[in-house]
C-alpha cells in the first residue's frame, strides 16, 4: 500500500461515509475532518513537491488489453494540493452558519447532498490527477464532469438547471472529443500508457499530431471554458449553491488545464506542436493555442465587466483567468510555464476567497445583484478586507500573489518577443482592474441602503476560511518562492526546465523580480503615507453618508444617491457595440442546425408510406450496385449463370 493508495482509498471511504451520513447534523464537522486528514495524507507525499519520485498506486486493473494504473507526480501533487486545500476551506466555510441557513432554507437532505457533491468532486479530481494512462485519465475526466454536474444541479432554480444542462452537453462534447483522440492515440501508438505513448508520438507525422492536438485541446479546452467554448461556464458556476460555487469556481475548471498540460505539453511535447504550421496563417499550432489563451483572457473578462451580479462577474473572470494559464503554459519556456502553473494556485486562492465574500454578502443581504447592494463596508469590514486583498490578487497588482504569476507570464512574453500576445494579456488585466473595482464598489462602497442598516458582519465560521485564504494570498505574494518550489518540481515532471527562483521571486539577468523587496518598499511607502496622513493633518470627523455634496441638494433616505447602474458608461458607449453575442448566436445556430436536421429525420420516420420508401431505396441501391460494375445486366447474367450451374 503506497500513500497514494491510502489517499484514494481514504477519500473513497469518506465519500461512502458522507453519502450514508449526509442527513446528520455532524456531517459538516465530519467532512472538515475528512479534508484535514486527506490533506495530511497528501502532505505525506510532499517529497513530490520538491522533486521526489512519482508515487504509484498498487492498484491496477487489466481490461481489454489495457492496464489501468494510477500514480501521482509533482504536477498531480500540485493540483491535488490546491484541490484539497480549497475543499478544506470550502468545507470549513459551509460547516457553520452558512450550512445552518442552507439547511433551513432548503432541507437537511439538500445540505447533505451538497456535502456529497463536494466529496465526490474531490474524489473524482483526485482520481483524475492520479491517472497513470490515458484511459484512466478519461475515466477520471468523466467522473469529474459528472460530479461537477451534480454540484450544479443542486440548485433547483430554472436558470441554474438550464446552465447545468448546458454544461453537461458541453462537457459531453468535450469528453467525446477526448475519447476520439484517445482512440486515435491508441491506434497510432499502440498503447495508452503515458510513457509508451510518449515514445510512440515520435513516430507520428505532423498531420497526425495536428489532429490529436486539436481534439485534445478541444476536449480539455471545453472544460477550461476557452474561446469559443466559454459560454457554459460562468452561469453554471455562478448558479451553483454558495459554498459549492467557491469550490467549483476555484478549481473545477482547472482540471482541464491539468489534462492539457499532461497531454499536450508532457506527452505530445510543445516542440511537436510548434512544428505544425496552420495553413493560410502565420501561426503555428502552439501560437494558435497561445492566442486562444489570450482571447480567453480578453473576451470573458470584458463580458465580466458588463455583469450586474457579483457571482456572474466572478465566474466570468474565472473563465478569463483560465486564459492566462493557457497562455503562460503555451509560451513553453520555463518562466511562462511556471507562470501558467503557478497561476492555478494563485487563482484558486483568490477566486475561492472572492466567492466566499460574495456568498457572505448573499448570506447577510440575500442578494448579489449590484443594483441592490452598496455601502456594506461599514457593516462587513472584514469581508470587505478579504475582498480587497483578493481583488488585488485577481487584478494582478503587487503585493498579492496574482501579480507574481502574471509577472512571470508577461516576462516570458517579453523574452519570447510576442508583442501582440503581451498586449492582449495586458488588455485582459486592465479589464480585470476595471471590473474588480466595479465589484468592490457596487457591493461595499457608495451609499448604504436603508434596508441594510442592520446587516452584520459575516459569522465567524465563514470569516475564518476567508481570512485564512487572504493570509495565503498575501503570504504567497510576498514569498512566491514557496509555491515556485512546487511549480519547479511540476515543471521537471512535465519535462520543462525548472524556473530559477528564490524565496522572493525570480533571478534573471535581464531584470528579475524580488517580491520581498517590492513588498518591503511598498509597505515602507504606505508607512510614509500613513505618517503624512495621520501626523501632519488635523483631526477629522466621521460624518453621515447623507452629509454629502449634492450641489446643494438635501439628501435623505428617499433619494438613492449612488452610482452603480451602467458603471462604465463612457467605455460602453464605445465598446458596447462590440458585444454582439457572436458566440451566443453561433451556439444558437448550431442548435438550430441540429433542430433542422432533427425535423428532417422526423419527417422521414413519419412518412406515411414506409414500405414504398423502403422499396425505392432498395431499388436505388441495387441499381447503383449493378451500374457501378459498368454492366447493367449483370444481375440477369448472374442469375442465368447461377441457373446454368
Amino acid at each position: 500500500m503506497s500513500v497514494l493508495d491510502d489517499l484514494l482509498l481514504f477519500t473513497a471511504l469518506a465519500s461512502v461515509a458522507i453519502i450514508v451520513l449526509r442527513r446528520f447534523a455532524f456531517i459538516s464537522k465530519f467532512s472538515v475532518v475528512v479534508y484535514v486528514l486527506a490533506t495530511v495524507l497528501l502532505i505525506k507525499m510532499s517529497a513530490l513537491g520538491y522533486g521526489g519520485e512519482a508515487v504509484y498506486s498498487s492498484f491496477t486493473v487489466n481490461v481489454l488489453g489495457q492496464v489501468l494504473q494510477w500514480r501521482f507526480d509533482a504536477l498531480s501533487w500540485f493540483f491535488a494540493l490546491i484541490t484539497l486545500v480549497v475543499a478544506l476551506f470550502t468545507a470549513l466555510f459551509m460547516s457553520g452558519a452558512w450550512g445552518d441557513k442552507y439547511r433551513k432554507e432548503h432541507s437537511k437532505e439538500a445540505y447533505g447532498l451538497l456535502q456529497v457533491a463536494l466529496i465526490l468532486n474531490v474524489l473524482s479530481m483526485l482520481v483524475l490527477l492520479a491517472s497513470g494512462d490515458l484511459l484512466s485519465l478519461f475515466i477520471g475526466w468523466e467522473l469529474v464532469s459528472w460530479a461537477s454536474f451534480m454540484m450544479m444541479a443542486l440548485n433547483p432554480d430554472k436558470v441554474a438547471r438550464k446552465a447545468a444542462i448546458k454544461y453537461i452537453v458541453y462537457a459531453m462534447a468535450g469528453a467525446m472529443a477526448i475519447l476520439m483522440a484517445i482512440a486515435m492515440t491508441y491506434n497510432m501508438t499502440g498503447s495508452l500508457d503515458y510513457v509508451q505513448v510518449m515514445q510512440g508520438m515520435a513516430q507520428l507525422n505532423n498531420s497526425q499530431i495536428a489532429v490529436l492536438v486539436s481534439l485534445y485541446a478541444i476536449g480539455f479546452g471545453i472544460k477550461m471554458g476557452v474561446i469559443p467554448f466559454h459560454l457554459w461556464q460562468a452561469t453554471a458556476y455562478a448558479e451553483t449553491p454558495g459554498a459549492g460555487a467557491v469550490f467549483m469556481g476555484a478549481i473545477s475548471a482547472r482540471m482541464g488545464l491539468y489534462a492539457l498540460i499532461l497531454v499536450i505539453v508532457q506527452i505530445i511535447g510543445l516542440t511537436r506542436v510548434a512544428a505544425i504550421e496552420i495553413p493560410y496563417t502565420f501561426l503555428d499550432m502552439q501560437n494558435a493555442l497561445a492566442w486562444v489563451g489570450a482571447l480567453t483572457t480578453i473576451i470573458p473578462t470584458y463580458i465580466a465587466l458588463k455583469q450586474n451580479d457579483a457571482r456572474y462577474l466572478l465566474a466570468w473572470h474565472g473563465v478569463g483567468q483560465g486564459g492566462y494559464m493557457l497562455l503562460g503554459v503555451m509560451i513553453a519556456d520555463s518562466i511562462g510555464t511556471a507562470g501558467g502553473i503557478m497561476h492555478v494556485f494563485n487563482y484558486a486562492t483568490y477566486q475561492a476567497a472572492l466567492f466566499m465574500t460574495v456568498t457572505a454578502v448573499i448570506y447577510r443581504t440575500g442578494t448579489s445583484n449590484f443594483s441592490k447592494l452598496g455601502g456594506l463596508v461599514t457593516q462587513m469590514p472584514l469581508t470587505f478586507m478579504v475582498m480587497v486583498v483578493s481583488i488585488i490578487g485577481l487584478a494582478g497588482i503587487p503585493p498579492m500573489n496574482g501579480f507574481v504569476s502574471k509577472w512571470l507570464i508577461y516576462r516570458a512574453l517579453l523574452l519570447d518577443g510576442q508583442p501582440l500576445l503581451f498586449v492582449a494579456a495586458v488588455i485582459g488585466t486592465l479589464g480585470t482592474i476595471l471590473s474588480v473595482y466595479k465589484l468592490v464598489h457596487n457591493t461595499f462602497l457608495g451609499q448604504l441602503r436603508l434596508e441594510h442598516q442592520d446587516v452584520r458582519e459575516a459569522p465567524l465560521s465563514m470569516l475564518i476560511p476567508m481570512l485564512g485564504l487572504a493570509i495565503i494570498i498575501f503570504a504567497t505574494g510576498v514569498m512566491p518562492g514557496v509555491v515556485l518550489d512546487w511549480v519547479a518540481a511540476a515543471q521537471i515532471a512535465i519535462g520543462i526546465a525548472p524556473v530559477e527562483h528564490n524565496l522572493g521571486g525570480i533571478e534573471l539577468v535581464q531584470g528579475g523580480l524580488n517580491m520581498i523587496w517590492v513588498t518591503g518598499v511598498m509597505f515602507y511607502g504606505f508607512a510614509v503615507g500613513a505618517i503624512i496622513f495621520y501626523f501632519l493633518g488635523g483631526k477629522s470627523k466621521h460624518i453621515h453618508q447623507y452629509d454629502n455634496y449634492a450641489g446643494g441638494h438635501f439628501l435623505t433616505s428617499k433619494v438613492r444617491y449612488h452610482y452603480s447602474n451602467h458603471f462604465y458608461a463612457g467605455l460602453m458607449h464605445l465598446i458596447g457595440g462590440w458585444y454582439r453575442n457572436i458566440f451566443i448566436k453561433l451556439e444558437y445556430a448550431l442548435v438550430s442546425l441540429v433542430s433542422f436536421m432533427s425535423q428532417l429525420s422526423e419527417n422521414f420516420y413519419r412518412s406515411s408510406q414506409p414500405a414504398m420508401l423502403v422499396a425505392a431505396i432498395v431499388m436505388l441501391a441495387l441499381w447503383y450496385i449493378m451500374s457501378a460494375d459498368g454492366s447493367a445486366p449483370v444481375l440477369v447474367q448472374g442469375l442465368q449463370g447461377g441457373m446454368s450451374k
Partner: protein
Amino acid sequence: MSKIGNIPVNAQNGKKRTNPLAGVFDELVQFCQSRSMFMLHYCTGCGAIELPPAMTSRFDMERLGIQPMVTPRQADILLITGYVSVKTLKRVILTYEQMQSPKYVIGICSCTVNGGMYWQSYATAKVLNEYLPVDVYIAGCMPRPEAVIEGLRRLMGNIENGKGIAWKDYFQRYDHYLGNQQHLFGNDWQTPTDIIGEARHYGLETEQTCGEHSRILEQHQQPLEPYKMRIKL
C-alpha cells in the same frame, strides 16, 4: 470704493487647535492660509458676472493664490454674489455647513448687505450675516473686480493677523444662527450636516451652541450619527 466697517462677530479666539501642524507653526499656517484661498462662488445673482474678469487675464486672482474650486469640501471662501432668495439661502447654508474650517464668507453686492433693490421682496433674505457669519461684505451694485480683489485682500489680511475667525462664531453661537434660520424656514428646518456634533468633536462648543432652537431641531431631527465601521458577528 467705500470702506466697510467690521462686521460684528462674537467669536472667542480660543488657542486650542486640532491641528498639530498649526500648533507648531501657527504663523506659517496662517500665512499659507492667507496665501492660498480656494473659493466657491455661489452665483446667486448679478454679481457673479464680475468674477470671470477677476479671475482671468485682466485681474488674475491667481497672483494672490486665489483659485476657484468646485465643491464646498475643497473651498475656503464662500462667495455669495448677489441677492439670496429664501430657497437659495437653504442651499447656501447647506453649502456653508459642508465647507471645512477655517472657512470664510464674503457677501458681494448690496443685496447681501441689506437686500438692496429687493428690500421689499417677500422672498429674499435681507441680511446675510443673520444666517451665516460673514467675514467681509463688498458693497456695490455691482462691485467691480478691483473691489472684489480689494475685499479679498482685506480678508487675507485678517487671516494673516489671526482675525479671520468668524467661522468659529457659527459653531460657538449655532443656536443664534439656527434660530434665525428657523424663523425664516419654519421649525422643521434641518440640514443633513451635524454642526453641533462637529462643534463638540473639535472642541468648539460653548453654552450658546445649543439652546432653545437646537432643542426644536432635536425634536424632529433625522439621526446623523455616521455608520460606525463595526465587526459584529
